[in-house]
């Protein structure tokens, strides 16, 4: 059990053993959030900055609480526009913040590859909280943690991910993670949003929702961005709903202990019918609680203990 990387840039380059380290550590840390005094001194004196260039209250507060429960000092910066033209470049902004002697930077940005870009000139540990349409590693990790809690295994599980896969960082991270853990992934959605070549990432592609959902163990619904309809990715919400929404009838054909998951927030009656949305609510609440444990685990594994020398 080990975690030897300086940054968490994505799931793609993690080993199975590193993923298990994170999940196991999260399991041990989970109970801290249920104590009366929700704090341990593990990261006392560490300085962390939350750099959110995309609006997000959930993920940002989740990271904030995770850091505070480990006794780290954390500050949040949000900027709605990114670099150049409007003023300071991203590189300058980040270097200025680092000059405050930070230990870690948590970054969410609308441009894919931004955490990778930062890691080429930053001294601090970089944690990817979502970069463009590329990856959202802590989301996939908390999804995996929730699946492990509910179903207790990964190997051979049938995991179905439904929605706008092309533009989803949650989908990519989950595809990488499920593959590393031995689960089988099927991607479902309209052909414009699920190009068949995406199967090369490690999944099956199916445009027939009824067929795909049969016997599924885990059904991950992704949020559909309504603007995509304006760009002609699909003709109308009505058509989308008919073909791809998760209805009670479709859900009945899934495995009897199947769980539905959603990274939130839900478009009721678009991705999923109202009746199921309520039962989905309880898993979503679990996902949120597990999110804190996972983020605590990630911060602990990267920052806990003596600072190591990463000379590469």
């Amino acid at each position, binding site marked *: 059990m080990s975690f030897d990387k300086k940054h968490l840039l994505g799931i793609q380059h993690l080993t199975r053993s590193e993923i298990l380290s994170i999940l196991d*550590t999260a399991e041990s840390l989970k*109970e801290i959030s249920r104590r009366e005094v929700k704090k*341990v*001194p593990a990261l006392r004196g560490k300085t962390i900055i939350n750099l959110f260039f995309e609006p997000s209250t959930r993920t940002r507060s989740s990271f904030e609480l995770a850091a505070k429960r480990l006794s780290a000092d954390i500050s949040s910066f949000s900027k709605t526009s990114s670099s150049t033209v409007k003023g300071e470049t991203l590189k300058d902004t980040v270097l200025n913040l680092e000059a405050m002697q930070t230990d870690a930077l948590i970054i969410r940005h609308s441009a894919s590859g931004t955490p990778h870009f930062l890691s080429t000139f930053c001294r601090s540990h970089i944690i990817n909280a979502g970069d463009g349409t590329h990856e959202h590693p802590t989301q996939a990790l908390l999804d995996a943690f929730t699946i492990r809690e509910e179903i207790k295994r990964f190997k051979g599980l049938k995991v179905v991910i439904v929605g706008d896969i092309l533009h989803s960082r949650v989908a990519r991270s989950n595809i990488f993670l499920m593959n590393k853990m031995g689960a089988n992934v099927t991607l479902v959605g309209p052909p414009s949003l699920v190009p068949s070549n995406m199967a090369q990432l490690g999944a099956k592609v199916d445009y027939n929702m009824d067929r795909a959902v049969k016997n599924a163990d885990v059904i991950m619904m992704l949020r559909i961005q309504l603007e995509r309809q304006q760009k002609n990715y699909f003709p109308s919400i009505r058509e989308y709903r008919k073909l791809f929404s998760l209805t009670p009838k479709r859900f009945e054909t899934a495995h009897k202990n199947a769980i539905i998951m959603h990274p939130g927030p839900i478009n009721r009656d678009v991705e999923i019918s109202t009746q199921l949305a309520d039962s989905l609510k309880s898993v979503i609440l679990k996902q949120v609680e597990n999110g804190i444990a996972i983020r605590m685990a990630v911060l602990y594994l990267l920052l*806990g203990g*003596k600072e190591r020398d990463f000379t590469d």
Partner: protein
Amino acid sequence: MKEKIKARVMDARKIKRAFNRMATEITERNRDPNNLVIIGIRTRGVHIAKRIANLIKEFDNIEVPVGILDITLYRDDFSELEDKHVVKKTEINFSIENKDVLLVDDVLFTGRTIRAAMDSLIDLGRPKTIQLLVFIDRGHKELPIKADYTGKSLPTSRREKVKVKLKEVDNKDEVLITEPGGIE
């Protein structure tokens, strides 16, 4: 680093006698055994705690609750641990509010583990009292910490290591002193 055995200072029989003695001392000193809880520090402290609880049940027919404490998150001496990042679960399924807590560990050395354990306990609640049981006290304390119950006092040199082996984990009961050296 390869270690070689320097001496076997306790065998199964001596260990059994030490346990019986300590269990008796505990019940003698704790007038209200119903307010007692035992918390073992991972990993071997937990087994020692369970054995003590079983002996108390045998002697006085009282069920003393046992909890497991992981103090990795409270440590200040990471160099002591090999696998410093492995944090395991703390499992204390009862309240320690106003209780007489008996903290249990296998070896008392610098005292830093016990300091971390006390910090952790205080974050979990406010005990009435905290007593300390260690199986071996090997000297070289760096903090003002003293055990209330000791299995055996064992003067050692700094470079030596004390290994408390228990049936539950190591298949036999014995206490060894080892030192660096030995052939690969």
